[in-house]
């Protein structure tokens, strides 16, 4: 059955203010479709964002929404989850927002394994401020603050999240919207910190500087750069250089979720 998106969107806020062809819309659609398949009610969903193009997503969805400060969506989401453990708390964030200015909050939320779903729109660039390089801008590519090509090595968000303690880590891209939707759905259902690295196209701020100003061409490049986990297992380190491994990269249901741990602490304190 087709999804009735009007149930989840603040229709009066449309059209989206993002550039035509932006991957944000694809990822937002994947998230809404996943929620629809889960049958969740709008009142039960809390969506938190920081600052950046993708962070404006909170304005379009008819959930509980809060558009906070640059990099600070995760601590706000953490607090809300602690206050209302029964609510589904989602963070919609960009690569700069979540891994640069918000990097510390991100790893510590992973460490706690609090039941948040963090969807990272990984478009390799700061879009809203004009194309500056982020920790995810591929090395060697151009940005407005790396006009001669980026010399910074990148984070691997999936490895970072896993290493920090997140218990569900997946990566897909706007080139595979159905698979992305499935991963988001799994992440939303997972009890614990789930991180979805959603590779996305910013053909305007990253693309135009790197000969990928056409969104279709850029989505094709993303497709080219992604390899499935199964395929990657058969590839050499050399062959995997510059590639993004997709799939459900880590899943752990044994680690205790943080609001549960806190609930037990409260019970202990009250029975002393």
């Amino acid at each position, binding site marked *: 059955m087709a999804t009735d998106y009007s149930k989840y969107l603040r229709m009066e806020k449309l059209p989206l203010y993002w550039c035509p062809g932006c991957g944000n819309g694809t990822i937002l659609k994947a998230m809404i479709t996943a929620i629809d398949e889960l049958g969740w009610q709008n009142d039960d969903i809390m969506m938190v964002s920081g600052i950046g193009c993708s962070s404006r997503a909170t304005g379009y969805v008819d959930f509980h929404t809060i558009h906070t400060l640059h990099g*600070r969506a995760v601590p706000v989401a953490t*607090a809300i989850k602690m206050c209302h453990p029964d609510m589904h708390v989602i963070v919609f964030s960009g690569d700069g927002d979540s891994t640069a200015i918000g990097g510390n909050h991100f790893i510590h939320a992973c460490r706690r394994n609090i039941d948040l779903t963090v969807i990272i729109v990984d478009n390799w660039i700061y879009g809203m401020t004009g194309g500056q390089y982020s920790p995810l801008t591929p090395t060697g590519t151009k940005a407005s603050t790396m006009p001669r090509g980026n010399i910074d090595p990148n984070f691997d968000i999936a490895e970072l999240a896993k290493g920090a303690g997140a218990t569900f880590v997946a990566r897909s891209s706007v080139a595979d919207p159905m698979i992305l939707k499935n991963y988001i759905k799994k992440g939303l259902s997972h009890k614990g910190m789930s991180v979805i690295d959603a590779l996305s196209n910013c053909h305007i701020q990253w693309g135009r500087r790197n000969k990928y100003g056409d969104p279709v061409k850029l989505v094709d490049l993303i497709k080219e750069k992604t390899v499935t986990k199964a395929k990657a297992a058969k590839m050499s380190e050399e062959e995997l250089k510059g590639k993004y491994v997709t799939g459900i990269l880590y899943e752990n249901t044994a680690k205790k979720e943080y609001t549960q741990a806190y609930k037990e602490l409260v019970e202990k304190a009250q029975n002393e």
Partner: protein
Amino acid sequence: MSKAQIMNGNELVSEAAIAAGCRFYAGYPITPSSEIPEHLSKRMPEVGGVFMQFEDEIASCMAAVGASYAGYKSMTASSGPGISLKQEAIGLACMMELPLVVVNVMRGGPSTGLPTRVSQADVMQARWGTHGDHMIIAVAPETLLETYTETIRAFNMAEKYRTPVYILTDAVLAHLNGRVELPDPSTLEIIDRTQPSVPPEEYNPYDVERFGEVPPLPNKEKFHDYRFHMTGLNKDKTGFPTVNKEAVEADEERMIRKITGNIKDIESFEYYKMDDAQLAIFAYGTNAAAARVAVDEAREAGIKAGMFRPITVWPFPEKQVAEIGKNFDKMIVTEINLGQMLYEVERATKGSIEISTVLQAAGVPIRPQQILDKMKEVL
């Protein structure tokens, strides 16, 4: 029945927060405020509240803002360097109009300064620390008991006006252990944020036309059923961003007016032996305890001194200080910094009074004798 207890200032802030209905605390360790999270880490779970020590000061303050949005009375505490880090989040609470209590246990500065020593050098930071036009409420208790009662009042004002409120204590008050007779909880006036009575689909978080200058805000019980949007951008009545010139200006002005327009409710001050005084002392916070002794000793020596003490330090008691400027010839401003509220006193008195100072930024309290010496010098 009230019962006398031996407690320090940090414990009193913590217990008062719980009595005021605070059920969310987020913080980060820093001297001299650390006994607040230590105390609340024990107490919050007992009362079913949330205590969290975050990865940094910024996260702590953002979490407190998030909890307030989610309907909880929330608090964070720190000292100078930590308060500097929290400033952006405090501005977010100003813009989103979320109740928030921020405790600054003042220590020396700038920078790491004197972590274990007393100071009052953050009073201007409390007023202007976050960027942009805004109004702030700050209280500065003098005694242990007042630390308790002012913390209650801070929560009440935060809830009533949907705004951040600072509690400015200091290293002396924080670590001073003393006998305190806490008020009977049933005698305390506890104010909660006004609750929306309209159905959720009709609720807007900033609909001042319909709800008045401080619109209702769902508490933790109502939060689930009331869906709304908030942003740090300038907003319209629905909580969505706007750049409309008239809407922005009206909102900016209202956010200040909701505090200055209710000054009678927010202001708090003390006139100590001012009725027949010939010399006025301006002091606040723990430093007022020294000034009080100096006033008493001066009177024994035949000097008719009195003290004006703001308890609500922000908004500044302009009217009262202007009045003193008109009625007195001389005034001594004393504070544990190199002159901050001095600017406000000068501004309010507009040159109508001769102002002398007893200022000190050495990490030690000002002694009554220093104030007494100054009195003798100026008379």
